[in-house]
């Protein structure tokens, strides 16, 4: 092995560890943030006792979960029961490997550091593939618990994830078609290096609002968050697939859920909101300009915005019922996604400018609305 290859390898390992640590810390503070924000939305204060403003609450929770008794039902399948939360967490963490948190490699102390763990040219495929693996953890956990509530949660989850995977994929294909690459780095570069008005760049949410809406809806369902949190609907199923889990095993499921939230938010940021892009200034003017133009802070800001939306949705909406969830996925999101994809494909073939895509997509929406207005039929159950 050459020295260069070894260096690369070490760098990747270090970055992977750093990303994991950052994600897990982020998860911990996300739970804190969620509790505080939801509390404020409900006229409460939230955790404020442990440490200043309750900031050490996640640590306290972590310690509690670590030392909590690990309970396991007598009839549970031990191996799978233990394996399931691990699958969930590992899969959730590995999805993050391909997400670029800045545009270009940064030069620090002479080392050229790439702000991503890996940059395969099929990053998007990798993401979709790996995120659909997450369902294994849930299914195995629910089944191995030998609990009917957990099993129902697992079944709901698998059906939901598989259905929404399609909508999610279709929604992502349209912007990728415009970019013409599956590499997330290219997606970011495309959005940052060109301008929207000139025709072939700009944040893709402008050119693909419908795709963004579809992606976001499917993503909320994909990570089992309200109002699509059927697999763990505590009012119906106790806690769904992790009913029987306690202590650190439960915490792993919990982490996986939040890391998945980070992942889908990051993908939304990367694909639709220009990733680490910030203000349209000339980055060559100096460090300040560079920071204004792009950087991990912009990326985090956007991700946290999406996380806030997750929390906001959870605080507001009732939960869907299973058949309704399926109907939305198959009868609404997927057809709309396909139509959008068709429109986009035509546009790409005809080499439309970005704003032309916007116009086309919006007019497609208007057509659909007016068609349905003309063709209104009584809503059946």
């Amino acid at each position, binding site marked *: 092995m050459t020295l260069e290859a070894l260096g690369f390898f070490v760098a990747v390992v270090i970055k992977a560890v750093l990303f994991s640590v950052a994600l897990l810390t982020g998860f911990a503070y996300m739970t804190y943030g969620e509790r505080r924000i*939801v509390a404020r*939305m*409900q*006229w*409460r204060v939230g955790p404020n006792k442990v440490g200043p403003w309750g900031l050490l609450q996640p640590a306290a929770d972590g310690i509690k979960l670590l030392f909590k008794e690990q309970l396991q039902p007598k009839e549970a399948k031990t191996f799978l029961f233990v394996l399931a939360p691990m699958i969930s967490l590992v899969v959730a963490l590995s999805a993050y490997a391909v997400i670029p948190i800045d545009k270009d490699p940064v030069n620090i102390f002479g080392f050229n550091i790439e702000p991503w763990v890996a940059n395969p040219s099929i990053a998007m495929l990798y993401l979709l593939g790996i995120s659909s693996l997450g369902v294994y953890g849930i299914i195995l956990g629910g089944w191995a618990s030998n609990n*009917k*509530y957990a099993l*129902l949660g697992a079944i709901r989850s698998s059906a939901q994830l598989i259905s929404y995977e399609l909508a999610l994929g279709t929604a992502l294909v349209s912007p990728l078609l415009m970019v013409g690459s599956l590499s997330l780095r290219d997606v970011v570069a495309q959005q940052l290096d060109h301008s929207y008005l000139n025709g072939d760049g700009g944040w893709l949410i402008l050119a693909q609002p419908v795709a963004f809406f579809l992606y976001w809806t499917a993503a909320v369902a994909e990570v089992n968050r*309200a*109002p699509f*949190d*059927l697999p763990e*609907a*505590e*009012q*119906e*199923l*106790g806690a769904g697939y992790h009913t029987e889990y306690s202590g650190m095993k439960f915490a792993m499921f919990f982490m996986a859920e939040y890391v998945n939230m980070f992942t889908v938010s990051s993908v939304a940021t990367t694909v639709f909101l220009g990733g680490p892009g910030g203000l349209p200034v000339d980055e060559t003017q100096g460090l300040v300009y560079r920071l204004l133009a792009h950087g991990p802070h912009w990326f985090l800001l956007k991700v946290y915005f999406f996380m806030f939306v997750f929390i906001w949705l*959870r*605080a*507001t*909406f*009732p*939960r*869907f*019922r*299973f*058949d*309704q969830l399926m109907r939305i996925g198959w009868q609404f999101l997927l057809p709309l996604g396909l139509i959008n994809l068709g429109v986009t494909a035509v546009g790409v073939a005809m080499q439309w400018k970005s704003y032309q895509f916007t116009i086309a997509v919006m007019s497609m929406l208007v057509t659909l609305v007016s068609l349905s207005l003309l063709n209104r039929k009584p809503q059946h*159950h």
Partner: protein
Amino acid sequence: MSQTMITGDIVSRFTQEQLDQNGYTVMNMGPQHPSTHGVLRLVLTLDGERVVDCVPDIGFLHTGIEKTAEVKTYNQALTLTDRMDYLAPLSNNLGYSLAVEKLLGVNIPERVSHIRVMLAELQRISSHMVWLGTSGLDAGAMSMFLYCFQDRERVLDLFENISGVRMMTSFIMPGGLMADLTEGFLDKVKEFLDYFEPHIEMYHGLLTGNSIWLNRTKKVGVLSAEQAKDYLCTGPVARASGVDWDIRRDFPYAAYADYDFKVPVLTEGDSFARYMVRMAELDESVKIVRQCLTKISPSGVYRTDDRKVVAPPKWEIARSMESLIHHFKLFTEGYAPTPGEVFQRVESPRGELAFHITSDGSNRPYRMHVRTPSFPHVQVMPVILQGHLLADVVVVLASVDFVLGDVDR
């Protein structure tokens, strides 16, 4: 019922062979379950997630109130009634007090009746707030729960202000009230109404127009008017099914005859209709309490002056021999109505609450039977739930709004 085991544990209406053949699962929902609103146990037979059959099992909260009342004096038994429907203790107090008063033949001053109406309506608001919050929560709308409980807290603050406790007030007693209103109480009630009324709008904004909520509740848990009557359903559950029946209007008690209010009736009979009926009742309750405020003087007579039923004021026993004797007689023996029986119904937030008290001429009720509104509502669950999904079960349970203390007594 083919399978009743020796221990009496209900498994399902189906035999094991039938279950295996059809691929049904039996699932125990409760008694420890977040959405059974207490300790109700539903034995659900499921086909996938679809409910094929449901056998309710009650009695986990059976406290023998009817038996206990037989060894308490009439005044002591009042405190038991608080604990039946613990979300509407004042309505229970009112029903019991009216029954005992009817048994005794006592006349109640008008002001007392108006205060009773006001308290009962405030109680209705607080009880409906629990219902709204929990049914929102059961459907997954978690903020609803806290908003509603906050509003309920405000009502409980009012109760605490006049009675010293928030829930088990025992404030309405046979013969009148426990004490007079506190200073400024009516202003506080007005303040509460002004605070509360915009919140009804907020709840409508959060749920009524929300398509997720509509989808979850419309055409879910349909109960026809005939079924409602056959299964003794009353109150909002029956009114949502098109049974135009409200004790407050049709057998006016206390001072309800003097009040102007509408009885909301819908005909759909589904969970959404039950929701809308209760939301409309909130409006009506606010209206009634507003009318009360114009009719009640801030202080004045708060119980009957019949010394055989209520004790004389404390200052009087220091002056009057007769008062002292009455005081002692009342707190040792109580009062003894002549033999006979009465049936007194009131409209509790959950429906018709009726006290059926039999007296044998002693100072204790010979038999106190309570016809509680929640009891038949649990009985009707298998009828409503047939063919629904598991997720609908919790919504229907919440929309019917029973209290297990009320069911089991």
